């Protein structure tokens, strides 16, 4: 696909927390950027362009690309902002890919961030939907997701217990990730007994609110191979932002992820994702998505997602580990979240994932979710793509 092959040469994350009173937004961004530069053994002067994103109304700052240059290092460099809601982080990663693949920039710094502690997250997300039609009754991401889960349960008979199993997995995985916010195991009973937020979603089914930033450095082939021999190659990317109104969406399976993943599989010749993919970082903001959306990814037949989860196949040590980092259940600085998925996969592919490392990763997937049931997907590989 690309004119130039593109690889990730460095990543950096903050230690994600419920709130970071010690730093302002620019300083939070800077922590992730400095870590990514250190990881790639580069300085800010090596960076040719910066792509940044978040969701404006979480922090109430307009023109964040311009405001953030003190932290991002964008001073006297090209900076551009991409924003697509929850998918922002994965949108940024795809943006970084195109910037480098174009041949116009050799090294690009990609930054996603959010300080969700600075506002009411649900209040702010509610403004993502149409003021005239949707905003009156919509109640943030949890309400839409709850409606999705309810529909799925109705169609396929899944249970709260099935969903809780996903939480148990991700919270256990998060204990291996020093950057995760929630690093404490939970039991199925604890999930089921946690307060009901929006039927059928309990408090422990849903991701936390987080302050955090993530930075990823991408480079073109000839430069990347000089920087390091531990490269995460971008094989393909696709997305679908299928719906404009919430009521148009198909509830119970994530159309947008099915279509985007099919595009990527077709481009790269993947016919049996369950066998060919070694690890997935799924943008899974709540437990039920861990069952439903793996069906949309083609890992299980419709209605069989829970069975696959219960088999242990997606646990560490299983056939196809999902969310070794603890995923979004472990932390969710929204504008960074999709990029964290990408960065975590880069760690997996390059063997830098320490306690959360999945052995022998060759092909891996990171995804993004957001907006009106929108999906982004990136296929990563250890070997240079041969096209």
């Amino acid at each position: 696909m690309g004119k130039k092959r593109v690889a990730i040469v460095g990543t950096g994350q903050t230690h994600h927390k419920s709130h970071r009173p010690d730093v302002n937004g620019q300083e939070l961004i800077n922590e992730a950027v400095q870590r990514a530069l250190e990881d790639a053994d580069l300085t800010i002067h090596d960076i040719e362009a910066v792509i940044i994103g978040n969701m404006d109304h979480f922090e109430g700052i307009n023109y964040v690309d311009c405001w953030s240059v003190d932290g991002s290092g964008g001073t006297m460099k090209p900076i551009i902002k991409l924003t697509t809601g929850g998918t922002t982080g994965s949108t940024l990663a795809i943006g970084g890919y195109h910037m480098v693949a174009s041949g116009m920039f050799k090294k690009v710094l990609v930054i996603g961030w959010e300080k969700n502690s600075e506002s009411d997250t649900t209040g702010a997300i509610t403004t993502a939907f149409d003021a005239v039609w949707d905003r009156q009754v919509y109640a943030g991401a949890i309400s839409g997701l709850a409606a999705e889960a309810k529909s799925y349960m109705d169609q396929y008979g899944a249970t709260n217990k099935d969903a809780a199993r996903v939480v148990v997995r991700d919270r256990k995985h998060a204990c291996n990730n020093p950057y995760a916010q929630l690093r404490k195991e939970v039991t199925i009973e604890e999930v089921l007994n946690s307060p009901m937020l929006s039927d059928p979603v309990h408090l422990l089914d849903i991701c936390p609110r987080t302050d955090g930033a993530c930075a990823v450095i991408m480079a073109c082939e000839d430069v990347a191979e000089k920087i390091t021999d531990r490269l995460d190659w971008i094989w393909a990317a696709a997305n679908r932002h299928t719906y404009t109104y919430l009521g148009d969406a198909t509830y119970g399976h994530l159309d947008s992820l099915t279509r985007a993943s099919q595009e990527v599989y077709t481009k790269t010749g993947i016919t049996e994702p369950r066998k060919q993919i070694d690890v997935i970082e799924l943008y899974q903001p709540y437990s039920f998505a861990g069952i439903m959306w793996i069906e949309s990814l083609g890992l299980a037949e419709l209605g069989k997602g829970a069975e696959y989860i219960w088999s242990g196949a997606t646990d560490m040590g299983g056939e196809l580990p999902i969310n070794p980092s603890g995923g979004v259940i472990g932390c969710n600085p929204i504008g960074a979240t999709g990029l964290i998925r990408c960065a975590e996969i880069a760690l997996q592919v390059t063997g830098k994932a320490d306690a959360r490392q999945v052995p022998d990763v060759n092909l891996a997937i990171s995804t993004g979710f957001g907006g009106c049931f929108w999906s982004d997907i990136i296929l990563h590989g250890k070997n240079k793509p041969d096209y």
Partner: protein
Amino acid sequence: MEDIFEGIEPMVYQSRINIPYNWWAGDTASKFLLAIRDERKILGTKCDSCNRVFVPPRKTCPTCFTDNQEWVNVSDVGILEAFTVARRQLAALPGKVPICFGLIKLEGADTALLHYLGEVDPGDIKIGMRVQARFAEERQGKITDIAYFRPI
């Protein structure tokens, strides 16, 4: 073609985005604002690499991208680099016009601070004039703890 909107007046839905924000100042800005609040002192941070002194202070030098370790006291007196006088009652203005804004480069600083100008006839403001901070009587740890800068 039939006009499907015949007799329909276009409607407007009046609403607002009203989300309360709590911005953490962070340790660097807190130190700056507390020094103004508690000691009526204006602090800057200094970059080890380029030696520039930033007011308002920055944790990291925007150009060198290294952490600014050193804190320095700067003067409460400086030179006016740019200004305007708001004459129309624009919605963002917190008080009645005319309101005078200026960029003030304090002695000892390499960057200019954005603030109000006061105790001056708007017509007498000139770029290059010397001004001094007038601190607010009641200070709350905000940028408005400096009430304004006045000519000297």
